């Protein structure tokens, strides 16, 4: 199948790989961390985009599924010794005490466990529409978080887990990013992806076209949760420390911000916006500290960054609902079209 389009795709992946390899070799630790973070947010953004953007299910529980993936993978990769150091209040449940597996299987299991939890929680409420669904899913995130805070011998409760092996690196993260992107494009192009979009466009019409709403919504939610779990696993092994507070609503908000900024439903929009948001979150860190304006000093206001991002989200929703890309994609045709227009303007 070496036609032109596939060649271009392979070329693109290779170029991305080379660029990443160069970045990996030249960037410092701090920048590399941001590069990984950006990749993780791409995976998370795309997973929420599948649920919210493709299928039109307004879900606000994403952080919960990330938490499941993060904890499940962390409990599998930590060494028995590290675990016993962590679980000093109450010993860890015996069946997890001595397990230690590699990162890749741990990521996959993290995703699968998140998918199962997502499916089980979503099944009873998928009948709900719009705002009601949003409210119910908002509950998920909190339920998961509270459960994790209180299952001392499984999650170490509020103390969290410390000293996870720092397995996440550019190679792991970006391989998963590329697989996720390919998956999303392929899914959307497939009959199932189109069925998801039909549900988003008009549920009643979709059902009358023979689409089983429950089955397809559950499918979208489960796959989305899987990738949320994978993202959570990567994040956990980048941070090295996880605790339930990391996965409160603010985390979902960040991902939602990425999806909305990028254009709900657009894969390329989500990718670009994930990168922009990650970098600016870091770049704007100074906002949380004291700011010297030359003539006056503003006292440090922790959370100032989030105020700015919240304002940005409001502005986008008020004036620019399509986000960066609307539902469009940066495809070859799209680029050709833009170039043509650009050339016309030149002439």
């Amino acid at each position, binding site marked *: 199948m070496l036609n032109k389009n596939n060649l271009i795709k392979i070329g693109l992946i290779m170029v991305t790989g080379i660029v990443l390899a160069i970045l990996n070799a030249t960037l410092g630790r701090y920048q590399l961390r941001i590069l990984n973070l950006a990749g993780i947010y791409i995976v998370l953004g795309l997973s929420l985009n599948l649920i919210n953007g493709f299928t039109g299910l307004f879900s606000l529980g994403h952080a919960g599924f990330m938490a499941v993936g993060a904890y499940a993978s962390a409990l599998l990769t930590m060494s028995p010794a590290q675990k016993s150091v962590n679980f000093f209040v109450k010993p860890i449940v015996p069946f997890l005490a001595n397990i230690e597996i590699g990162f890749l299987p741990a990521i996959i299991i993290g995703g699968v466990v998140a998918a199962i939890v997502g499916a089980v929680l979503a099944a009873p409420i998928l009948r709900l529409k719009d705002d009601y669904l949003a409210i119910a899913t908002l509950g998920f995130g909190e339920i998961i978080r509270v459960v994790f805070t209180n299952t001392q011998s499984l999650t170490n409760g509020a103390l969290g887990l410390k000293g996870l092996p720092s397995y996440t690196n550019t190679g792991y993260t970006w391989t998963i990013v590329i697989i996720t992107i390919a998956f999303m494009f392929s899914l959307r192009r497939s*009959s*199932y992806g189109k069925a998801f*979009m039909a549900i988003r*466009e008009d549920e*009643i*019409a979709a*059902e009358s*076209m*023979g689409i089983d709403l429950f089955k397809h919504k559950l499918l979208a939610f489960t*796959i989305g949760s899987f990738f949320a779990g994978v993202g959570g696993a990567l994040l956990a092994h980048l941070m090295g420390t996880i605790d339930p507070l990391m996965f409160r609503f603010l985390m979902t908000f960040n991902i939602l911000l990425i999806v909305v900024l990028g254009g709900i439903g657009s894969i390329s929009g989500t990718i670009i916006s994930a990168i922009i948001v990650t970098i600016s979150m870091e770049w704007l860190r100074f906002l949380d500290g004291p700011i010297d304006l030359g003539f006056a000093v503003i006292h440090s206001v922790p959370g100032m960054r989030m105020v700015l991002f919240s304002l940005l989200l409001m502005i986008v929703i008020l004036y620019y609902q399509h986000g960066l890309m609307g539902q469009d994609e940066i495809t070859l045709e799209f680029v050709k079209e833009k170039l043509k227009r650009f050339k016309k303007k030149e002439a």
Partner: protein
Amino acid sequence: MSILRTDSITMKFGGLTAVSELSLNIPTNGIVGLIGPNGAGKTTIFNMITGVYTPTTGNIIFDKIDITGMKSHLITKNGIARTFQNIRLFKDLTVLDNVMIANHLRLKSNIISSVLRTPDYRKKEGHILKKSILLLEQTGLIEYKDDKASSLPYGKQRKLEIARALATEPKLLLLDEPAAGMNPQESIELMEFVKEIRDAFDLSVLMIEHHMQVIMGVCEKIYVLDYGVNIAEGNPEEIQNNPKVIEAYLGVDE
């Protein structure tokens, strides 16, 4: 032979009886009309037949199967497709995608092979694509294939709804006011079109319509509904001369 039979179906919404003890009989390969003043309960009948509502009492038998209370998507799978009074296309998707989606229910591939694009899936997808293109050609929509559904002129949108319904491979097609918003010329074309698809796709049609010219011109049998009650049935000539019908329509002259 009848393709659809309703046995005395009633639909109550709280205190309101929208449809009362209605017994329809749609002959196989027939084109049957359903008329009545606004609010008579016509769309409610479609909603019961397609599983949107479950009749309060009574049964619906389709192709020898009792489909009363069956889920909408399963009814479609069994072979009933419909259009909507207020067009319900997948607006932001292309004309071709609208039709392709209607094939999804007959696709026998799971999600994994679809995403991995296995040879088997690609074969099936190719088949659906070919079938959809053919259908767009038959319905005269092929030139709009890559346009957004919402960008089509009104009459074409109605046609696309029919094409999309046909793509589900129905044995019975329910049309809810297909000529609404069409000019007289388009309405006449629609009459011919309904006959054509009946023959080409070997199906039966039940249509709601306010344009009497269309109904009288195309239907072999007509049911008249007033306040949820079936007040007359018969061929166009019988209906036109039925005093009860004339009375129900008095002042609703069309």
